[in-house]
């Protein structure tokens, strides 16, 4: 894992001191709210439906045990005993007091964490593959490049006031686990025909009210020009992105309006100019970063088999573990989606337990996934049963990864001041209705947003749900056919919306159509793509 150097630590410590002073001035009246609001947002502090909400950055979703433990302690000490893991691989606290915020940031700084750039029109937390550095299917470890991008984008003076927020994902596996093409910039590390490693740039994707899949604007950028090319992409956006209308301010609108070819031409011209400026970080810096992502001390000669005699354990192994690149190890996903639970929420005790388990079983390391789960990336297969037993005792052994119960849901109207409808109760009802049917229904990614901003990624769900306000009443639109993986697609609305109970019934009908039409090993998405919307529509509205 990356460890702060003196510059990182000094910057974060300075920001804590600065924000402490800003809070003091706000409370004593020398700083009015209209001046203070952008400052608190720069430190991830929102004013939400019930209280202040603090969003803490988890760079590319990677945490040490010590960091995770502090996240649990903050939940207890300053919040109401729980935290909410988000689709940007971050964590949010819902009940923060303004007067406590500087102390929380100070606690975070002690474990090399902060809340900087988790809000505002700047480059947000860099996201990545939660299996990075562990999975058997990646080309190289993308984390050093994610870290390089983090350093480049942190306090970048030119990109602190962009037309709108900006999200970047970096992956190095064809199995896209980071919704890469639904980002402002998606970077996929690839190998070209000459066998060289470089980066494919996908620019102008996003969800929100105008969902778009990012087109590839350059299929191969040499890795030693990664930052320069990123800078060029941002510069063109910063120069021409719309500032007159926030709903048209994201880069996807610029790319769409200019056209991919013209945007690319401008980026390439800017890139050529920037190459002459020598802005790429020295290779020595990348090497310094890479060293910190060296493999942990994997053992060799470990048994690669697992005793599956406990049937509940066997189901969990099949569902919640993935292939590791080192024999004898597995990648474990801890589901934060218990039946009837709140997707992404974990209690302080659960957070600390996961920290302890990472220390004991996973070389001190955890990952937050964009699907609001937690990954232990390096677990010996021989330890899986002991790990599962401890997770089970803490209510963390739900075997539902990538099934209908593994729902992404935004906080919705229960917490969010922008939401139009509640997301969580719908997720709970669906989770309860379909509990025990994971094996029968198989892979089905269901995503719920409580408003058009699409924080719950509803456009990219095999089944998506969008909550809207219809004359003061919550109403839920149903979408089918979205995907955020290597086969990214946007879901299509089935027709008129439903109330809270109606939407659950509609989903039940959609799954019945799938099961009736399924061929072979088809997933829900495969069947939908083959048979189209018509039979689903007929069953749902007929």
């Amino acid at each position: 894992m990356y460890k702060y150097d003196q510059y990182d630590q000094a910057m974060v410590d300075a920001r804590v001191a600065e924000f402490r002073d800003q809070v003091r001035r706000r409370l004593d009246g020398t700083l009015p709210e209209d001046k203070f609001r952008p400052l608190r947002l720069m430190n991830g502090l929102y004013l939400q439906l019930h209280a202040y909400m603090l969003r803490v950055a988890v760079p590319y979703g990677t945490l040490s045990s010590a960091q995770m433990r502090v996240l649990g302690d903050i939940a207890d000490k300053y919040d109401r005993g729980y935290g909410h893991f988000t689709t940007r691989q971050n964590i949010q606290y819902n009940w923060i007091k303004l007067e406590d915020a500087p102390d929380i940031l100070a606690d975070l700084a002690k474990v090399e964490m902060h809340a900087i750039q988790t809000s505002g029109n700047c480059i947000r937390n860099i996201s990545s593959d939660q299996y990075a550095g562990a999975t058997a299917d990646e080309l190289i470890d993308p984390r050093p490049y994610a870290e390089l991008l983090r350093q480049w984008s942190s306090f970048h003076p030119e990109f602190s006031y962009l037309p709108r927020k900006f999200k970047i994902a970096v992956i190095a596996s064809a199995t896209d686990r980071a919704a890469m093409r639904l980002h402002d910039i998606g970077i996929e590390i690839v190998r070209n025909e000459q066998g060289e490693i470089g980066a494919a740039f996908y620019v102008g994707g996003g969800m929100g009210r105008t969902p778009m899949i990012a087109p590839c604007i350059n299929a191969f950028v040499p890795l030693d020009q990664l930052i320069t090319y990123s800078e060029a992409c941002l510069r063109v956006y910063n120069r021409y992105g719309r500032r007159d209308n926030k709903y048209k301010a994201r880069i996807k609108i610029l790319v769409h309006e200019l056209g991919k070819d013209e945007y690319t031409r401008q980026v390439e011209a800017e890139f050529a100019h920037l190459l002459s400026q020598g802005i790429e970080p020295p290779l020595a810096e990348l090497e310094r970063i890479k060293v910190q992502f060296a493999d942990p001390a994997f053992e060799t000669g470990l048994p690669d088999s697992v005793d599956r005699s406990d049937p509940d354990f066997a189901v969990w192994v099949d569902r919640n573990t993935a292939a590791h690149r080192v024999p004898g190890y597995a990648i474990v996903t801890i589901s934060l989606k218990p039946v009837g639970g709140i997707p992404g929420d974990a209690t302080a005790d659960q957070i600390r337990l996961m920290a302890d388990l990472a220390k004991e079983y996973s070389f001190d390391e955890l990952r937050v996934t964009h699907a609001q789960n937690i990954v232990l990336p390096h677990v010996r297969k021989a330890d899986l049963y002991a790990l599962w037993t401890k997770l089970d005792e803490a209510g963390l052994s739900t075997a539902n990864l990538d099934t209908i119960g593994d729902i992404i849901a935004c906080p919705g109207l229960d917490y969010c001041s922008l939401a139009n409808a509640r997301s969580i109760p719908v997720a709970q009802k669906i989770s309860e209705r379909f509990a025990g049917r994971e094996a029968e229904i198989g892979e089905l990614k269901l995503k719920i947003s409580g408003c058009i901003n699409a924080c719950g990624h509803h456009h990219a769900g095999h089944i998506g749900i969008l909550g809207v306000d219809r004359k003061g009443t919550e109403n839920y639109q149903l979408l089918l056919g979205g995907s955020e993986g290597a086969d990214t697609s946007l879901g299509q609305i089935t027709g008129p919306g439903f109330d809270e109970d109606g939407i659950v019934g509609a989903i039940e009908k959609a799954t019945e159509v799938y099961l009736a039409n399924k061929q072979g090993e088809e997933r829900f998405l495969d069947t939908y793509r083959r048979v189209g919307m018509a039979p689903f529509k007929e069953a749902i509205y007929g």
Partner: protein
Amino acid sequence: MKILTGNDLKSGAVTWWAGNGWSLHVEDAVDVGTDAETILAREEAARRVVSGYAIDAEKTADGVRPAHIKDRIRAVGPTVRLDLSLKPADPAAGNWVI
């Protein structure tokens, strides 16, 4: 009726204008008629409240009920965490919201 709501500057807690100060309980909210702007300007300047705004509400047998679901949820707390509600002993709190 028109009532005023906002958040306590220090704690962020949802508050309701009760005529002579701010209350955590919506049932204490009073009709401000046409005085909303005056009261909010004074209270925000005094740093007692932030992000204040006026809403429509009605008086019911259960007390003051905001017209919009968003404000009803603000009044009670997350409908999915009734243990965190201001009315934890009231099993119908969630239903009241809807």
